[in-house]
Protein backbone atom coordinates (compact mmCIF):
# COMPACT_ATOMS: atom_id res chain seq x y z
CA UNK A 1 0.00 0.00 0.00
CA UNK A 2 2.66 2.51 1.04
CA UNK A 3 4.80 1.27 -1.83
CA UNK A 4 2.16 2.00 -4.45
CA UNK A 5 1.46 5.43 -2.92
CA UNK A 6 5.18 6.26 -2.96
CA UNK A 7 5.57 5.24 -6.60
CA UNK A 8 2.46 7.20 -7.56
CA UNK A 9 3.71 10.26 -5.69
CA UNK A 10 7.06 10.17 -7.46
CA UNK A 11 5.41 9.71 -10.86
CA UNK A 12 3.04 12.63 -10.28
CA UNK A 13 6.03 14.64 -9.02
CA UNK A 14 7.91 13.77 -12.20
CA UNK A 15 5.04 15.03 -14.36
CA UNK A 16 4.78 18.16 -12.20
CA UNK A 17 8.53 18.65 -12.71
CA UNK A 18 8.14 18.61 -16.49
CA UNK A 19 5.49 21.35 -16.30
CA UNK A 20 7.57 23.37 -13.82
CA UNK A 21 10.58 23.05 -16.14
CA UNK A 22 8.54 24.26 -19.12
CA UNK A 23 7.39 27.29 -17.16
CA UNK A 24 10.85 28.01 -15.76
CA UNK A 25 12.43 27.72 -19.21
CA UNK A 26 9.97 30.15 -20.82
CA UNK A 27 9.39 32.66 -18.01
CA UNK A 28 12.12 32.22 -15.39
CA UNK A 29 15.25 31.92 -17.53
CA UNK A 30 14.96 35.37 -19.21
CA UNK A 31 15.02 36.90 -15.71
CA UNK A 32 18.08 34.84 -14.75
CA UNK A 33 19.80 36.02 -17.95
CA UNK A 34 18.98 39.67 -17.19
CA UNK A 35 20.34 39.26 -13.65
CA UNK A 36 23.55 37.68 -15.00
CA UNK A 37 23.90 40.52 -17.54
CA UNK A 38 23.76 42.94 -14.60
CA UNK A 39 26.34 40.87 -12.71
CA UNK A 40 28.66 40.78 -15.73
CA UNK A 41 28.40 44.56 -16.19
CA UNK A 42 29.26 45.07 -12.50
CA UNK A 43 32.23 42.68 -12.71
CA UNK A 44 33.54 44.36 -15.88
CA UNK A 45 33.32 47.79 -14.27
CA UNK A 46 35.17 46.53 -11.19
CA UNK A 47 37.85 44.85 -13.30
CA UNK A 48 38.41 48.05 -15.30
CA UNK A 49 38.63 50.14 -12.14
CA UNK A 50 41.09 47.65 -10.60
CA UNK A 51 43.18 47.53 -13.80
CA UNK A 52 43.47 51.32 -13.67
CA UNK A 53 44.91 50.90 -10.16
CA UNK A 54 47.33 48.27 -11.43
CA UNK A 55 45.46 45.24 -9.94
CA UNK A 56 44.64 42.49 -12.40
CA UNK A 57 41.60 40.39 -11.40
CA UNK A 58 41.20 36.96 -12.89
CA UNK A 59 37.69 36.23 -14.20
CA UNK A 60 35.96 33.28 -12.47
CA UNK A 61 36.43 30.02 -14.38
CA UNK A 62 33.24 28.73 -15.96
CA UNK A 63 32.68 25.10 -14.95
CA UNK A 64 29.31 24.74 -16.66
CA UNK A 65 28.40 26.91 -19.63
CA UNK A 66 25.36 29.18 -19.46
CA UNK A 67 23.43 27.26 -22.15
CA UNK A 68 23.98 24.03 -20.18
CA UNK A 69 22.91 25.63 -16.88
CA UNK A 70 19.78 27.03 -18.53
CA UNK A 71 18.76 23.73 -20.16
CA UNK A 72 19.96 20.37 -18.80
CA UNK A 73 21.16 21.85 -15.54
CA UNK A 74 17.79 23.46 -14.89
CA UNK A 75 16.01 20.28 -16.00
CA UNK A 76 18.06 18.10 -13.61
CA UNK A 77 17.49 20.35 -10.62
CA UNK A 78 13.77 20.79 -11.20
CA UNK A 79 13.11 17.09 -11.94
CA UNK A 80 15.01 15.85 -8.88
CA UNK A 81 13.29 18.44 -6.69
CA UNK A 82 9.75 17.75 -7.94
CA UNK A 83 10.12 13.95 -7.97
CA UNK A 84 11.55 14.00 -4.42
CA UNK A 85 8.73 16.25 -3.22
CA UNK A 86 6.25 13.87 -4.88
CA UNK A 87 7.70 10.99 -2.87
CA UNK A 88 7.68 12.95 0.40
CA UNK A 89 4.14 14.09 -0.33
CA UNK A 90 3.00 10.48 -0.79
CA UNK A 91 4.58 9.41 2.53
CA UNK A 92 2.90 12.27 4.44
CA UNK A 93 -0.36 11.42 2.66
CA UNK A 94 -0.01 7.77 3.73
CA UNK A 95 0.10 8.97 7.33
CA UNK A 96 -2.52 11.73 7.08
CA UNK A 97 -5.21 9.92 5.11
CA UNK A 98 -7.89 8.55 7.45
CA UNK A 99 -6.16 10.24 10.40
CA UNK A 100 -6.06 14.00 9.87
CA UNK A 101 -9.70 14.40 8.80
CA UNK A 102 -12.74 12.37 7.80
CA UNK A 103 -12.52 13.75 4.27
CA UNK A 104 -11.94 11.50 1.29
CA UNK A 105 -8.47 10.90 -0.22
CA UNK A 106 -8.92 13.52 -2.91
CA UNK A 107 -9.72 16.29 -0.43
CA UNK A 108 -6.93 15.15 1.91
CA UNK A 109 -4.46 15.30 -0.99
CA UNK A 110 -5.60 18.79 -2.07
CA UNK A 111 -5.47 20.20 1.48
CA UNK A 112 -2.10 18.56 2.11
CA UNK A 113 -0.65 20.21 -0.99
CA UNK A 114 -2.04 23.59 0.05
CA UNK A 115 -0.51 23.33 3.54
CA UNK A 116 2.73 22.01 2.01
CA UNK A 117 2.99 25.01 -0.32
CA UNK A 118 2.35 27.44 2.56
CA UNK A 119 4.71 25.75 5.04
CA UNK A 120 7.57 24.75 2.69
CA UNK A 121 7.65 27.70 0.33
CA UNK A 122 5.27 30.61 0.86
CA UNK A 123 6.03 31.48 4.48
CA UNK A 124 9.83 30.91 4.34
CA UNK A 125 9.93 33.01 1.15
CA UNK A 126 7.97 35.88 2.69
CA UNK A 127 10.84 36.18 5.19
CA UNK A 128 13.74 35.25 2.88
CA UNK A 129 12.56 35.71 -0.71
CA UNK A 130 14.06 33.94 -3.71
CA UNK A 131 16.93 35.90 -5.27
CA UNK A 132 18.30 35.96 -8.82
CA UNK A 133 22.06 35.75 -9.50
CA UNK A 134 24.07 38.83 -8.37
CA UNK A 135 21.76 39.34 -5.37
CA UNK A 136 23.55 38.04 -2.26
CA UNK A 137 27.23 38.19 -1.26
CA UNK A 138 29.23 34.96 -1.70
CA UNK A 139 30.66 35.57 1.80
CA UNK A 140 27.26 35.28 3.48
CA UNK A 141 26.09 32.07 1.76
CA UNK A 142 26.48 30.00 4.93
CA UNK A 143 24.44 32.25 7.21
CA UNK A 144 21.82 32.84 4.49
CA UNK A 145 21.41 29.09 3.94
CA UNK A 146 21.20 28.41 7.68
CA UNK A 147 18.58 31.10 8.21
CA UNK A 148 16.51 29.97 5.22
CA UNK A 149 16.49 26.34 6.36
CA UNK A 150 15.79 27.40 9.98
CA UNK A 151 12.80 29.44 8.80
CA UNK A 152 11.58 26.50 6.72
CA UNK A 153 12.01 23.97 9.56
CA UNK A 154 10.19 26.17 12.08
CA UNK A 155 7.39 26.85 9.60
CA UNK A 156 6.94 23.10 8.99
CA UNK A 157 7.04 22.36 12.73
CA UNK A 158 4.45 25.07 13.42
CA UNK A 159 2.25 23.64 10.66
CA UNK A 160 2.48 20.14 12.19
CA UNK A 161 1.50 21.52 15.61
CA UNK A 162 -1.41 23.42 14.03
CA UNK A 163 -2.61 20.23 12.29
CA UNK A 164 -2.64 18.28 15.57
CA UNK A 165 -4.37 21.19 17.32
CA UNK A 166 -7.05 21.35 14.62
CA UNK A 167 -7.77 17.66 15.02
CA UNK A 168 -8.03 17.99 18.85
CA UNK A 169 -10.29 21.04 18.74
CA UNK A 170 -12.63 19.84 15.98
CA UNK A 171 -14.89 17.60 18.16
CA UNK A 172 -15.40 20.39 20.72
CA UNK A 173 -15.62 23.47 18.51
CA UNK A 174 -16.64 22.15 15.10
CA UNK A 175 -14.46 21.87 12.01
CA UNK A 176 -14.64 25.55 10.97
CA UNK A 177 -13.72 27.04 14.33
CA UNK A 178 -11.00 24.44 14.86
CA UNK A 179 -9.47 25.21 11.45
CA UNK A 180 -9.63 28.99 11.95
CA UNK A 181 -8.07 28.85 15.43
CA UNK A 182 -5.27 26.45 14.49
CA UNK A 183 -4.62 28.46 11.30
CA UNK A 184 -4.29 31.60 13.42
CA UNK A 185 -1.92 29.77 15.79
CA UNK A 186 0.29 28.87 12.80
CA UNK A 187 0.28 32.46 11.52
CA UNK A 188 1.15 33.94 14.93
CA UNK A 189 3.91 31.33 15.44
CA UNK A 190 5.63 32.06 12.10
CA UNK A 191 5.23 35.82 12.63
CA UNK A 192 7.07 35.51 15.95
CA UNK A 193 9.82 33.43 14.29
CA UNK A 194 10.09 35.90 11.40
CA UNK A 195 10.32 38.82 13.80
CA UNK A 196 13.14 37.16 15.78
CA UNK A 197 15.29 35.91 12.87
CA UNK A 198 17.57 38.63 11.44
CA UNK A 199 16.68 40.30 8.13
CA UNK A 200 18.80 39.82 5.01
CA UNK A 201 18.94 42.56 2.42
CA UNK A 202 21.73 42.18 -0.09
CA UNK A 203 20.04 43.56 -3.19
CA UNK A 204 22.56 45.84 -4.95
CA UNK A 205 21.24 49.41 -4.86
CA UNK A 206 21.04 49.72 -8.65
CA UNK A 207 19.71 46.21 -9.37
CA UNK A 208 16.68 46.54 -11.70
CA UNK A 209 13.52 46.27 -9.57
CA UNK A 210 11.46 44.88 -12.44
CA UNK A 211 13.83 41.93 -12.89
CA UNK A 212 13.71 41.17 -9.16
CA UNK A 213 9.89 41.36 -9.13
CA UNK A 214 9.49 39.09 -12.19
CA UNK A 215 12.06 36.64 -10.88
CA UNK A 216 10.22 36.26 -7.57
CA UNK A 217 6.79 35.98 -9.21
CA UNK A 218 8.13 33.27 -11.55
CA UNK A 219 9.72 31.42 -8.65
CA UNK A 220 6.38 31.44 -6.78
CA UNK A 221 4.51 30.35 -9.91
CA UNK A 222 6.83 27.34 -10.31
CA UNK A 223 5.95 26.25 -6.77
CA UNK A 224 2.22 26.79 -7.33
CA UNK A 225 2.39 24.61 -10.46
CA UNK A 226 4.24 21.85 -8.60
CA UNK A 227 2.00 21.76 -5.54
CA UNK A 228 -1.20 22.06 -7.59
CA UNK A 229 -0.24 19.13 -9.82
CA UNK A 230 0.84 17.09 -6.77
CA UNK A 231 -2.31 17.80 -4.75
CA UNK A 232 -4.87 17.48 -7.52
CA UNK A 233 -3.16 14.81 -9.64
CA UNK A 234 -2.14 12.52 -6.79
CA UNK A 235 -5.59 12.96 -5.20
CA UNK A 236 -7.49 12.05 -8.36
CA UNK A 237 -5.39 8.94 -9.06
CA UNK A 238 -5.42 7.77 -5.43
CA UNK A 239 -9.17 8.20 -4.97
CA UNK A 240 -9.82 6.25 -8.15
CA UNK A 241 -7.52 3.46 -7.01
CA UNK A 242 -9.01 3.41 -3.47
CA UNK A 243 -12.55 3.14 -4.86
CA UNK A 244 -11.48 0.33 -7.21
CA UNK A 245 -9.90 -1.58 -4.31
CA UNK A 246 -12.92 -0.99 -2.06
CA UNK A 247 -10.85 1.04 0.39
CA UNK A 248 -13.03 4.10 0.06
CA UNK A 249 -16.62 4.67 -0.94
CA UNK A 250 -17.73 8.24 -1.47
CA UNK A 251 -20.94 9.12 0.36
CA UNK A 252 -22.22 10.97 -2.66
CA UNK A 253 -21.07 10.71 -6.23
CA UNK A 254 -19.39 13.93 -7.39
CA UNK A 255 -22.32 14.63 -9.67
CA UNK A 256 -24.63 14.69 -6.64
CA UNK A 257 -22.28 16.81 -4.57
CA UNK A 258 -22.16 19.56 -7.17
CA UNK A 259 -25.90 19.50 -7.93
Amino acid at each position, binding site marked *: *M*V*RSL*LIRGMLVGFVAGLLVFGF*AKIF*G*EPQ*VDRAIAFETAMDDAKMKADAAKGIHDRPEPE*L*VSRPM*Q*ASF*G*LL*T*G*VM*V*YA*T*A*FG*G*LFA*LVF*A*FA*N*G*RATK*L*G*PRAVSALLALTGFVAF*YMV*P*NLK*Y*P*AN*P*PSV*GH*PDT*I*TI*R*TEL*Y*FAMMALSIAAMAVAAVLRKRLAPKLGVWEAAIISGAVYIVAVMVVAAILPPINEVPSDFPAVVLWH*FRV*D*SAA*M*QIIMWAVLGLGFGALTERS*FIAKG*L*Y*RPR*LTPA*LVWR
Partner: protein
Amino acid sequence: MSDKAIGSDVVSAPIPVREILPWIIFGALMLLAIYFVGAEEGATSLIKGMYVHEWVHDSRHLLGFPCH
Protein backbone atom coordinates in the same frame (compact mmCIF):
# COMPACT_ATOMS: atom_id res chain seq x y z
CA MET B 1 -32.64 1.79 0.74
CA SER B 2 -30.26 3.67 -1.45
CA ASP B 3 -26.54 3.30 -1.00
CA LYS B 4 -26.30 7.05 -1.21
CA ALA B 5 -28.08 7.62 2.08
CA ILE B 6 -26.23 9.89 4.48
CA GLY B 7 -23.97 8.01 6.85
CA SER B 8 -23.14 5.24 4.44
CA ASP B 9 -19.73 6.63 3.52
CA VAL B 10 -16.66 4.61 4.30
CA VAL B 11 -13.68 6.77 5.21
CA SER B 12 -10.57 4.91 4.17
CA ALA B 13 -8.99 3.32 7.24
CA PRO B 14 -5.64 4.80 8.27
CA ILE B 15 -2.58 2.83 7.22
CA PRO B 16 -1.00 1.43 10.43
CA VAL B 17 2.09 3.40 11.49
CA ARG B 18 4.24 0.23 11.63
CA GLU B 19 3.46 -0.28 7.94
CA ILE B 20 4.60 3.27 7.10
CA LEU B 21 7.75 3.34 9.26
CA PRO B 22 10.07 1.21 7.05
CA TRP B 23 9.38 3.62 4.18
CA ILE B 24 10.76 6.55 6.17
CA ILE B 25 14.17 5.58 4.72
CA PHE B 26 12.85 6.67 1.32
CA GLY B 27 11.73 9.94 2.89
CA ALA B 28 15.33 10.45 4.02
CA LEU B 29 16.55 9.74 0.46
CA MET B 30 14.08 12.32 -0.89
CA LEU B 31 15.42 14.89 1.60
CA LEU B 32 18.98 14.07 0.54
CA ALA B 33 18.01 14.63 -3.11
CA ILE B 34 16.46 18.00 -2.23
CA TYR B 35 19.61 18.88 -0.28
CA PHE B 36 21.75 18.23 -3.37
CA VAL B 37 19.58 20.53 -5.48
CA GLY B 38 19.23 23.15 -2.76
CA ALA B 39 22.42 23.45 -0.78
CA GLU B 40 25.29 21.11 -1.79
CA GLU B 41 28.55 22.96 -2.54
CA GLY B 42 27.06 26.16 -1.20
CA ALA B 43 26.92 26.48 2.56
CA THR B 44 28.08 22.88 3.08
CA SER B 45 29.76 20.36 0.85
CA LEU B 46 29.79 16.55 0.69
CA ILE B 47 31.54 16.39 -2.67
CA LYS B 48 34.65 18.41 -3.52
CA GLY B 49 34.54 21.11 -6.17
CA MET B 50 31.73 23.26 -7.47
CA TYR B 51 30.35 21.10 -10.26
CA VAL B 52 27.05 20.08 -8.62
CA HIS B 53 26.45 23.67 -7.56
CA GLU B 54 27.14 25.01 -11.04
CA TRP B 55 25.10 22.30 -12.74
CA VAL B 56 21.88 22.93 -10.74
CA HIS B 57 22.67 26.69 -10.44
CA ASP B 58 19.59 28.06 -12.22
CA SER B 59 17.13 25.71 -10.53
CA ARG B 60 18.63 26.53 -7.14
CA HIS B 61 17.93 30.23 -7.69
CA LEU B 62 14.47 29.70 -9.17
CA LEU B 63 13.38 27.19 -6.49
CA GLY B 64 14.06 29.81 -3.85
CA PHE B 65 17.27 28.50 -2.26
CA PRO B 66 20.04 30.91 -1.28
CA CYS B 67 22.90 30.77 -3.80
CA HIS B 68 26.40 32.30 -4.13
